[in-house]
């Protein structure tokens, strides 16, 4: 809400600069800013009377003038053609600042000293071009600052009015806050109306179909108006807050709306058929062309203002074109009504428009100010458009203003706002805001809530009123000691542990959108299925689904980084995915990640090697080790996003928790990704149980380990995993570990075969092992493998 300070001073006196006023309102009401105004940087320009004008002896186009500017007379050199003795103009004295921050100094022009400068409208930033210096009416007093004369000294503040304060969508509401802030008195305009016969009820009728929608509707009639331009003061008022002046009658409705915060509407009386207003819901398919020239189709959710034949306005939202006040308007029917906020809100939302009127009605206007608002508008139409105001009002419906009285207990006030103001001060503060205050029982105040403050309904609301007028800085900040036992959510702790571990493995965490394209998974060769949850009103029509997988957005991040030259990628996200689950939704935490580009950071002595399956798998197993999840395993992968020959399902504690592997070449091609990308996509919740188990301490081994290597030549089809499993199941009591140290294919082994080298580790907790017993155990295992896999030993 923009407020001109000059306009504001019509209702309240205050001795504050715009900046100070903005700060006070910010501290008492809501965020308020000073709006930069055109002439705010102009100083030192005063009204001055030209006494004499003589031709400059050395320049045809210049004059040498003596001017009286109140504090004395000065000689100035002037080039304007319109300068003449006796005229009242504007003098920029030496040191003055004019438009564009230009400073005026004493200068010598063709040998004559000029003590200042007579200025044009352009030089004050008022016009683009000027033909001569400013000329004021003779009544202006010499020495007066021209900003006052020209209205350049007006300042505008912008108050960010919150939805609970419709009263502050009128300047009087703001003025009331200012009055409370500075301790001065609010002046509400008094209306002295001259009425003529016949009375309004004889000229017009109003019917309300449902008083729920419109509890009260007042109509007044103003006849013989002379439509014309508004006077300067009214135009300035409206323009100062960014409204365009249209005509005296229309300007009055806008002015009164801005003044009281109550929208009113002027109909051309002679176009209102049967001179009858009917307030009713629209029927389905009914049409109305609104003031903006748009023909709108209506439904029963819209409340209409109709005349004797059909719709003339969307109630509380926008008037219709057919009854608009124009140049030929002679008589005016003025509407001042109270419409149901929800009905107006839904109607405006449905039409997709928000107007100054709908914004105010949907927040709730003051029901008790209606007569005053209408009378004020009538008086101004009489004053500015010579309209004759018909006696009385056409009054339909009735408004039983629900008077709210609240007891404010001082004990409650003190305990909430410690220390809180004393009772008399609290009472005065509430009274300054328009509340009726009297003594209540048991050290309380009985507070009557004014009709324009329907946001105040509870004692807590009153405490806020006192707190903000008293000043939040009066409240004593305290950090008391309270002890509350804090418990940690194990699932969250587990996710934190996973994050730490993945970062420790050199990955950057990313956070991507929860939204997903409809065919995001199809683009990866997978299917979205019908489990995805769809938004009814997506912001981006391309991304209407809640993601069921992190992979699509993860791969987008891979591509975008590769495209800007960041091709060595190790990224992960811990985030939610969403699925339909019966009537409800299943929100699941996932860990997804990608490796692309070089397997190792670049170094000067090694060749960059692209990421492969084993780099990624190594990361996952290292992650398992970091998190003490040692029961990782793999199962066959049957999806299509990954390359079937280098991908697997991940098992943790025997449960399938996700997939990992190289992205399929098709997806890489289709998604414009770098050549080799490893991804993993793992469900986190099943890991929580595995993580939560803390290790059990066993004495550290006191005897050395013994190692034995063996290289087995086996069939190409035999997997390392099979052999490892067989070694595991040998149940040699001394065997404590096994690892693969080498895989070889080539000249030294026959075709169709490969050699896999294993390191087996033996240890006893009781004694140092002898070579002989280790060799025996190793021999038993090797024999077992030779038999099981038809393996031969490679020397």
């Amino acid at each position: 809400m923009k407020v001109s300070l000059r306009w504001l001073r019509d209702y309240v006196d205050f001795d504050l600069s715009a900046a100070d006023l903005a700060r006070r309102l910010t501290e008492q009401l809501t965020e308020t800013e000073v709006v930069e105004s055109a002439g705010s940087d102009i100083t030192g320009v005063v009204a001055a009377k030209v006494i004499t004008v003589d031709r400059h002896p050395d320049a045809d186009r210049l004059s040498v003038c003596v001017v009286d500017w109140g504090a004395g007379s000065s000689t100035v050199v002037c080039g304007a053609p319109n300068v003449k003795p006796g005229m009242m103009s504007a003098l920029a004295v030496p040191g003055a600042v004019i438009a564009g921050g230009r400073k005026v100094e004493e200068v010598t022009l063709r040998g004559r000293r000029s003590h200042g400068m007579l200025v044009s409208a352009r030089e004050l930033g008022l016009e683009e071009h000027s033909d001569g210096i400013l000329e004021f009416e003779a009544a202006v007093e010499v020495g007066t600052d021209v900003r006052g004369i020209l209205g350049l000294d007006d300042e505008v503040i912008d108050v960010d009015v919150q939805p609970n304060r419709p009263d502050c969508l009128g300047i009087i509401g703001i003025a009331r806050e200012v009055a409370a802030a500075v301790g001065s008195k609010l002046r509400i305009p008094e209306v002295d109306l001259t009425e003529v016969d016949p009375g309004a009820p004889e000229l017009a009728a109003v019917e309300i179909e449902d008083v729920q929608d419109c509890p009260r509707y007042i109509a007044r009639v103003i006849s013989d108006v002379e439509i014309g331009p508004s006077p300067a003061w009214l135009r300035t008022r409206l323009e100062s807050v960014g409204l365009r002046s249209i005509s005296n009658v229309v300007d009055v409705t806008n002015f009164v709306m801005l003044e009281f915060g109550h929208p009113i509407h002027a109909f051309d009386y002679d176009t209102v058929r049967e001179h009858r207003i009917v307030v009713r819901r629209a029927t389905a398919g009914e049409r109305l062309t609104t003031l903006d020239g748009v023909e709108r189709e209506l439904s029963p959710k819209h409340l209409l203002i109709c005349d004797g034949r059909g719709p003339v306005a969307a109630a509380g939202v926008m008037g219709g074109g057919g009854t608009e006040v124009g140049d030929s308007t002679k008589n005016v029917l003025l509407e001042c009504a109270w419409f149901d906020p929800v009905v107006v809100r839904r109607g405006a939302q449905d039409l997709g428009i928000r107007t100054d009127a709908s914004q105010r009605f949907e927040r709730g206007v003051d029901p008790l100010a209606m007569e005053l608002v209408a009378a004020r508008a009538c008086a101004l139409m009489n004053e500015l458009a010579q309209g004759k105001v018909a006696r009385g009002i056409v009054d339909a419906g009735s408004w039983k203003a629900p008077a709210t009285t609240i007891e404010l207990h001082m004990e409650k006030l003190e305990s909430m706002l410690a220390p809180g103001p004393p009772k008399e001060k609290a009472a005065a503060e509430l009274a300054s805001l328009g509340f009726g205050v009297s003594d209540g029982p048991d050290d309380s105040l009985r507070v009557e809530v004014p009709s324009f403050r329907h946001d105040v309904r509870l004692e807590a609301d009153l405490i806020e009123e006192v707190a903000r007028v008293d000043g939040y800085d009066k409240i004593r900040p305290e950090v008391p000691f309270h002890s509350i036992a804090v418990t940690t959510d194990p699932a969250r702790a587990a996710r934190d542990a996973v994050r730490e571990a993945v970062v420790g493995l050199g990955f950057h965490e990313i956070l991507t959108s929860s939204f997903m394209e409809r065919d995001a998974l199809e683009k990866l060769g997978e299917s979205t299925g019908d489990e995805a949850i769809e938004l009814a009103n997506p912001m981006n029509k391309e991304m209407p689904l809640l993601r069921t997988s992190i992979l699509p957005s993860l791969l987008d991040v891979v591509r975008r980084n590769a495209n800007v030259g960041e091709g060595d990628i190790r990224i992960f996200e811990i985030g939610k995915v969403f699925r339909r689950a019966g009537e409800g939704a299943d929100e699941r935490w996932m860990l997804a990640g990608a490796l692309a580009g070089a397997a190792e950071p670049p170094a000067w002595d090694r060749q960059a090697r692209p990421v492969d399956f084993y780099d990624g798998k190594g990361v996952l197993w290292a992650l398992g080790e970091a998190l003490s999840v040692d029961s990782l395993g793999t199962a066959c992968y049957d999806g299509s996003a990954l390359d079937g020959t280098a991908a697997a399902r991940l098992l943790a504690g025997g449960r399938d928790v996700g997939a990992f592997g190289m992205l399929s070449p098709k997806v890489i091609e289709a998604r414009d990704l770098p050549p080799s990308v490893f991804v993993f996509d793992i469900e986190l919740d099943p890991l929580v149980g595995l993580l939560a188990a803390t290790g059990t301490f066993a004495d550290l081994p006191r005897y050395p380990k013994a190692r034995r290597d063996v290289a087995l030549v086996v069939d190409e089809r035999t997997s390392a995993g099979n052999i490892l499993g067989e070694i595991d199941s040998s149940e040699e009591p001394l065997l404590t570990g096994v690892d693969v140290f080498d895989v070889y294919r080539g000249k030294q082994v026959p075709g169709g075969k490969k050699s896999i080298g294993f390191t087996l580790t033996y240890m006893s907790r009781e004694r140092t092992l002898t070579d002989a017993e280790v060799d025996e155990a190793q021999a038993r295992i090797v024999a077992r493998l030779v038999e099981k896999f038809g393996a031969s030993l490679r020397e």
Partner: protein
Amino acid sequence: MIERLKELRGEAVAAFDGAASPQELEEARVRYLGRKSELNQASRGLKDLPEDERRAVGRAVNEIKNELAAHLTAATDRLEAAAGGAASSVDLTLPGRRPWVGGKHPITRTLERLESIFAGLGFEVATGPHIEDDFHNFEALNIPPDHPARDMHDTFYIDGDRLLRTHTSPVQIRTMKSRKPPVRIIAPGRVYRNETPDASHGSEFYQLEGLYVDRGVRFGELMGVLTKFLGELYGEAIAVRFRPGFFPFTEPSTEVDIECRICHGRGCPVCKNTGWVELLGAGMVDPRVFEAVGYDPDVYTGYAFGLGVDRIHMMMCGVNDIRLYHENDLRFLRQV
């Protein structure tokens, strides 16, 4: 005499060539070439020798001195090279082989920082679903249907009354419905607003909200706790301002500003020349919220507060576009 000199020469060459450190080399130099060395004494004793012997010994002494000087120079070079000279086999200035270095997302790091500060103030972390219903996201928070305050939350709807949470306040409602006071929690997490993203608004961003409900909780405690929190975050000296605000679920409500960290309160474009930057919204829990969750508003009072995590980090690092947090450009992630 000559024999002794040859012996000395052998010892000295071995000592110089074998010196493993500059100290060892210096000791060897003093022993074999120093003023009190045998060689020096021999050359000083020349004058006492017979003429013919004097010439032969003199020549030998000089030869040995020259030879040892050459070995000394070589040994000095060798030790200097080992200590980093250009001729070394290890060039200490070559870059080392680095492992990959990762990092948490700045939002995560900020959340961790905030959570640890609030943990110190006795707040427990609570979480809730992202898919919420109208009751928990709006109605229980005193935002009835068709209330103009709904305009403050552009909402993503799913179907029926299901929606994506527009704030983490529904976590407060769920917590209060499931526990009796005292309750002291923070609710961090992702929230959703159906707004076209720009430099200062995202459609998905992170919030952290706090709630404390007990008997006799005062407004001053809210101010004290938030002042303490902001002091921890930005330094004790930071100026904090509490001014009125409007939130349907708190009464009284307050917006909390900190002194602009760009201009230190003097006024600049970032703070729109006010010297203050808005950081938190807070207030005393509205009695209507207590009624919605079944707490007796005559017995309990409490405070709630909320802040934008992205914004806190932006203010800390001078990031000028909130969208950067969700683009995940590695160059950005490594920077902040």
